[in-house]
């Protein structure tokens, strides 16, 4: 253990002299957390709206007002015809076009059923989906107001069902509550894996690794000495990140924070061990970096933070079974938002423990003091 201590001391000293890397380790993740958490928003406001009003009636006016009074839409253009409005879609000046046909009010009053047309710019399908569902909501609200009380009663008698959703663990569907813990873990994983990936191979490039390989240092001592400094850095990032989550983003912390710490300290061994494994089999930093990127991009994009894993095809979900980020993000949400205990998250914790053991054993085994 004394030898490991000398290694740690050396790593810390080198780190202290490498100002850029130090800043990257200590400050960058927190800046990223704040930036990304404010930026990663599933709500869209100020969608640009073009209106084609061919009815020019009070009823049409009221519908247009209704759109304007939501924060979601911003009425930017009024066009005389659908053809003109289509030009706005083409030129990307409109996310949504609302067409109110002639005789809109008359149909409403007499037939009780009138039609409006919504043209949605589908270039960005997430935005399009939100735009059309917001618009449908506005039209629905308009309709409810308009409908005479008698009709509403009639609907009620016919047994109309109204669904009132209650979102447990995140009642207001606050996206920050949902995103911040995930983004935090993702950023930390990225950074610790990168520094680990570049570490051993850097000593190979400089040539100091050969001097170490000719000492009696044991392989596990070497890997442990490389692992621990960055493990501490990762836990430090996690601590500051949690404080930010609590006091800046008001993320609820229902469950046990010490439990989350314990699990996080196991989890960190996975990206760190994987980084060291990549580093010990690579010959250049460039090689190591690309291999690390290969894994990181898969981990990040399939971790369920940006796309729910439930939407993925079965094979992708099977592949995801080895994605450590998926497990820790899930565990983090469960503990923080739902108050899950160790018993509840035992399975993913055991999986992470297994992964940590596997990658680090591999890293020790693959690190060669004797070649050929």
């Amino acid at each position: 253990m004394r030898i490991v201590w000398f290694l740690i001391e050396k790593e810390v000293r080198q780190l202290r002299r490498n100002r850029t890397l130090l800043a990257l380790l200590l400050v960058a993740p927190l800046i990223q957390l704040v930036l990304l958490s404010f930026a990663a928003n599933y709500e869209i406001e100020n969608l640009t709206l073009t209106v084609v009003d061919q009815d020019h009636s009070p009823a049409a006016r009221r519908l247009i007002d209704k759109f304007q009074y939501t924060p979601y839409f911003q009425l930017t253009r009024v066009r005389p015809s659908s053809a003109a409005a289509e030009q706005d879609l083409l030129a990307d000046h409109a996310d949504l076009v609302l067409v109110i046909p002639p005789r809109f009010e008359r149909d409403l009053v007499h037939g009780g059923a009138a039609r409006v047309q919504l043209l949605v710019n589908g270039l960005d399908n997430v935005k399009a989906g939100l735009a059309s569902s917001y618009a449908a909501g506005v039209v629905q609200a308009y309709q409810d107001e308009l409908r005479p009380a008698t009709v509403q009663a009639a609907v009620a008698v016919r047994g109309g069902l109204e669904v009132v959703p209650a979102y447990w663990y995140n009642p207001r569907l606050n996206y920050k509550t949902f995103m911040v813990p995930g983004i935090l873990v993702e950023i930390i994983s990225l950074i610790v894996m990168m520094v680990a990936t570049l570490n051993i191979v850097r000593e190979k490039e400089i040539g100091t690794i050969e001097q170490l390989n000719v000492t009696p240092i044991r392989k596990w001592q070497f890997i442990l000495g490389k692992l621990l400094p960055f493990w501490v850095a990762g836990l430090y990032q996690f601590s500051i990140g949690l404080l930010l989550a609590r006091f800046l983003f008001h993320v609820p912390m229902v469950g046990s924070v010490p439990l989350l710490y314990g699990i996080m300290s196991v989890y960190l061994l996975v990206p760190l061990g994987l980084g060291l494994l990549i580093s010990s089999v690579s010959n250049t930093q460039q090689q190591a970096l690309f291999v690390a990127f290969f894994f990181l991009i898969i981990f990040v994009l399939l971790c369920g933070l940006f796309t729910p894993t439930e939407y993925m095809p079965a094979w992708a979900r099977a592949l995801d079974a080895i994605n450590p980020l998926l497990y820790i993000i899930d565990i983090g949400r469960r503990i923080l938002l739902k108050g899950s205990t160790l018993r509840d998250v035992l399975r993913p914790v055991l999986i992470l423990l297994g992964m940590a053991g596997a990658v680090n054993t591999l890293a020790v085994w693959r690190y060669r003091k004797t070649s050929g």
Partner: protein
Amino acid sequence: MNKLHPPDVAASRAAPAGPVITCELLTKRFGDFVAVNAISFEVAAGEIFGFLGANGAGKTTAMRMLCGLLGPTEGAATVAGFDVFRQPELIKQHIGYMSQKFSLYEDLTVGENIRFYGGVYGLKGAVIREKTTALLQRLGLEAERNTLVGSLPLGWKQKLAFSVALLHEPAVIFLDEPTGGVDPITRRQFWDLIYEAAAAGTTIFITTHYMDEAEYCDRVSIMVDGKIEALASPAGLKRQFGVATMDEVFLHLARGAKNTE
């Protein structure tokens, strides 16, 4: 042959019984290429053994095998009494190594480098402190204790690297072209350090391309195409080939080489 060190030094060395390095038909193949071809020799304790050969002759490969950095293909070899095949990690506890590639950490200070390598070899903190002071005094680098190694001139770095490699008092020290790119004065100072270490009983195993340095060795072997073509004292070699200088001995042997860079 007028050696730099007095002849009685050899007698005063605390030499343990038996050779420190033995090599018997030691071979290394990379695929079809035979880098080291059945070399056999012994090096006695306290000896300064020069390991010569043209680039590509197999010197570094042979040396790396003896240091436990490279697994041999066949043959037998022991270093400091340990088997090269089965006990490479035990060998490492008893040897020092200084490669042609500079191997101290440039982003650590002189003192920090000494402390780190001392620690890795398992020396205690108090011993390290004591040895650091003595080492810096011997090299005249007391003022540079807190200087980053990266900012030292090459000659100082090499002397420091050599002294650090001796910190744990190894039985043998392997030096792979330690004086490459160093000025003649520093080279001369470097050899003073080598003699000092040899006088203290450390066996020196050194590769070099400088023939004047070959003259400083007790015995010299010359490798050509993976084989040891000649092995004797510098005087013996010159006699054997009927020439006046080590340069001529080397050229005579190396001219027939197939594997040169």
